């Protein structure tokens, strides 16, 4: 082989006409028995078969098994990807969510009492944890939860005929989904800056809050990894201006059982069950973005909810919640994800819940300390880390001409998934590091050792960083070419 090829060929290149995993096909229609069907006219039919791969069952199994080997994952690697809470996903959650009876239930079949009992209890537990009064499990990821939240805020103002409120205040450090959501909800985004310690610039907030303010979207601890301790003040300002407070629950892992968004003054919250409650990340989902609301927004919760009357569980829909912002999914959200979160939460229980935030904080603060001792600069050295923290390589980038991306890629060679890079955008050359509570001290120490080694490499052989990774299935990939010479689907005969 002259040119280097893919480590594992494309499934299309394993294909051969006439091959197939025949035992997966439905039984051949028995000539004698085949039913007369309403004829489907030629004009509605496909002229030629779609170019799907034709492979044997073994080929498919081997191909996807081999592809799996090209991934880092929690099950195989430390994965301190900030803002993503890559904690251990207990196998039990999957095992029990995949019981055949659960899997075989059609969403429109008569209401399954066992499953709905789980969902009802999940709603109740989430209320308790967040200090909210109502919870809907229907949003299918964090961003959809945000959408539901802002839509509820809008519905609230609209119901009060307060129609001028179309601005959503968002701190600069916010996750991209926050402003994007505001736009999707037809709002205008007002960005406010952060202060030196990662807090909200209160003066800027005061300046922007007013009669056009629909609400503010906040993450607390923020995406800068620090807790906004003036949250009561923030709440006062926004509420006084007539706006509502939205809590982006992506960082809920930091405060579980320590402080509740409801008690901080938030009116609405979304949770990322795939983060805090450890449902799998699945290579990019599915998630679940359950929303919780305070009393003002109760009527607007997205449907369906699970209700319970006389010991029978049922879906509550338009009928029971006529003011709901409506449906967000074809059925009832990512039901199976919610079931996994339920199993996880039952295994944690009351005592385990607070342990999550405590040990997430212990791990993050320990890492921050060790990395600063190794010479790295914490973005907010005067602050406690929450469950995550930021280091900035602004000095290193100047001194050694290496970037945060170089460090990230080099870490892969040490068998560690890189932290989140270049987010939040306002900290230059940053790495957002979230170890989670399920990692051992030894794993953290290994990470610190690798980071120390990388720091030494910066000084002595920076090229090693710039050309990293060296041990992955591919070297550094050309992202620019990926855009310029767009190749997003296999084409026959190439």
């Amino acid at each position, binding site marked *: 082989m002259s040119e280097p090829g893919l480590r594992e060929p494309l499934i299309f290149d394993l294909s051969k006409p006439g091959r197939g995993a025949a035992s997966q096909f439905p039984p051949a229609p028995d000539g004698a028995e085949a039913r007369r069907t309403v004829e489907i006219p030629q004009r509605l039919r496909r002229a030629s078969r779609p170019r799907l791969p034709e492979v044997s069952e073994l080929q498919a199994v081997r191909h996807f098994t081999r592809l799996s080997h*090209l991934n880092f994952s929690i099950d195989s690697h430390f994965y301190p990807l900030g803002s993503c809470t890559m904690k251990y996903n207990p196998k039990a959650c999957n095992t029990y969510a995949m019981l055949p009876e659960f899997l075989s239930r059609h969403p429109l079949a008569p209401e399954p009492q066992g499953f709905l009992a789980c969902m009802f209890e999940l709603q109740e537990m989430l209320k308790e944890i967040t200090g909210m009064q109502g919870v809907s499990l229907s949003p299918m990821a964090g961003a959809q939860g945000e959408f539901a939240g802002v839509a509820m805020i809008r519905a609230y103002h609209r119901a009060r005929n307060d129609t001028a409120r179309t601005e959503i205040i968002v701190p600069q450090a916010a996750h991209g989904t926050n402003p994007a959501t505001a736009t999707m909800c037809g709002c205008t985004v007002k960005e406010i800056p952060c202060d030196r310690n990662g807090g909200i610039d209160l003066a800027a907030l005061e300046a922007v809050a007013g009669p056009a303010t629909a609400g503010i979207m906040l993450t607390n601890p923020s995406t800068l990894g620090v807790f906004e301790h003036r949250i009561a003040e923030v709440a006062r300002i926004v509420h006084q201006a007539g706006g509502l407070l939205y809590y982006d629950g992506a960082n809920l892992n930091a405060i579980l059982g320590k402080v509740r968004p409801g008690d901080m003054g938030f009116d609405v919250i979304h949770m990322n069950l795939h983060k805090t409650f450890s449902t799998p990340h699945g290579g990019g989902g599915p998630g679940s973005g359950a929303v919780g609301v305070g009393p003002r927004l109760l009527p607007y919760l997205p449907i369906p909810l699970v209700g319970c009357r006389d010991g029978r569980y049922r879906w509550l829909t338009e009928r029971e919640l006529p003011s709901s912002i409506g449906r967000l999914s074809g059925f009832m959200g990512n039901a199976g*994800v919610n079931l996994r979160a339920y199993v996880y939460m039952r295994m944690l229980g009351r005592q385990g819940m607070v342990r999550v935030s405590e040990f997430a904080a212990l791990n993050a603060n320990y890492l921050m300390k060790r990395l600063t001792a190794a010479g790295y600069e914490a973005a907010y050295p005067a602050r406690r880390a929450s469950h995550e923290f930021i280091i900035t390589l602004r000095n290193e980038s100047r001194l050694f001409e290496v970037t945060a991306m170089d460090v990230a890629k080099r870490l892969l060679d040490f068998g560690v998934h890189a932290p989140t890079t270049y987010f939040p955008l306002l900290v230059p050359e940053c790495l957002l590091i979230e170890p989670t509570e399920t990692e051992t001290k030894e794993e953290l120490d290994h990470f610190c050792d690798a980071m120390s080694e990388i720091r030494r490499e910066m000084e002595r052989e920076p090229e090693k960083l710039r050309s990293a990774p060296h041990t992955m299935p591919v070297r550094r990939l050309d992202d620019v070419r990926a855009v310029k010479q767009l190749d997003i689907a296999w084409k026959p005969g190439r």
Partner: protein
Amino acid sequence: MPFVPHTPADVSDMLSAIGAGSIDELFDEIPEALKAGTLHGLPAALREMEVGRLLTERAAADGRLLNFIGAGAYEHHIPAPVWAIATRGEFYSAYTPYQAEASQGTLQLIYEYQSMICALTGMEAANASLYDGASALAEACLMAIRAKPESRRILIPRTVNPVYAKVAQTIARHQNVEFESTAIDRRTGRTDPDALKSSIRGNEAAALVIQQPNFFGNLEEIDELTDWAHANRLLVIAVVNPTSLAIFKPPGEWGSEESGNRGADIVCGEGQPLGVPLASGGPYFGFMATRLAHIRQMPGRIVGRTVDTEGRPGFTLTLQAREQHIRRSKATSNICTNQGLLVTAATIYLSLLGPEGLERVAASCAERTESLVQALTRIPGVAAAFETPRFHEAVLLLDRPASPVLAALAERGIAGGFDLGASHPELGHAMLVCATETKLDQDIDAYARAMRDAMQLPRGERGRPRRHHE
């Protein structure tokens, strides 16, 4: 401690490294007044053994019904390798492939998935998934509006899944998108072309949504509808069932050759039939495909093929400038986490079935549904509503409201269909039934027997079933 690996020695070593006296101290920036007390409302921890038993008992309580409901979610055979592989930790516990070099497995799989969606739909570009079919339609509507900002009106015939229309409304209404619903042709159970024509006044609609097969299982005259829409400068948003695409004309070829503008503009749909279990409604996934011309308006992740510094091919996320993490308030959508694991399952499913397998699934579904319709319409009081060519669903008309009949069937262990009474009262006492390749003759017989019983019961309302074109 469940899932926390720290020994007491670890804790004290770490605290002293930090310079804190206790774990509590790490939370000292939280104002005391805000601190939560014990979460009394939460139950005590269960061991895995206990939770396993609880869930097993609840699952057993739910039992299993013989299912004949479709209406947007379809029971298909799921090959054993699909979930055996999709649940491998390397897929299950990885996240969005931000670090491409350490995520080639997921990235290549998504590239293969995009290629398969393009092959099925006949389109040029597909994304890496959206949440589900309904929300994918909502995104498609917003995308159409971006592509054709002159108008904010979308035509959604009543032949489209009513929940899809609702979800599109929930999501798109905030951007002042208006949805106009147009009537069903009651004789054929298809979109009424005349209603459509009268619905556009001048040129002010952005797009027409065409569902194929439509919500009733009937096949629309997609060429005519597409030509009409394009002639009137509407974009065509196709909502399709992916299984059916093994045998039906792909949206990329809708419309007549002569029109000079063949093909839907945006295609979306529910991916669940491709190896995803029914599971009370989710997680499923939405797929979306479009023409290359519109790709920068498409929401969601896209994987592209590129090369590394040594010229070796590899895969990476691409065209990210459309997305929220780059474009923030100007992004095409707020979507971030999508439905990766389901895409993994679907890609394995499609690889196993291939063109022949999927074609046979589709053909078998169509045949099974005809068998079911024949068996049920032999029962007095039950008639087929339409004789239009269909895929794997059919509308039945009863001589009484469907709801008590369905309840009686459920008591006999049969999920008999979807009651159209609430969503489509114009059809009379109608219900939607579905039989996929999973239904054996014995199952259809069992349904017919149960239906005979159920129809023997006293009925609230009398009269023979009305067929609307009689």
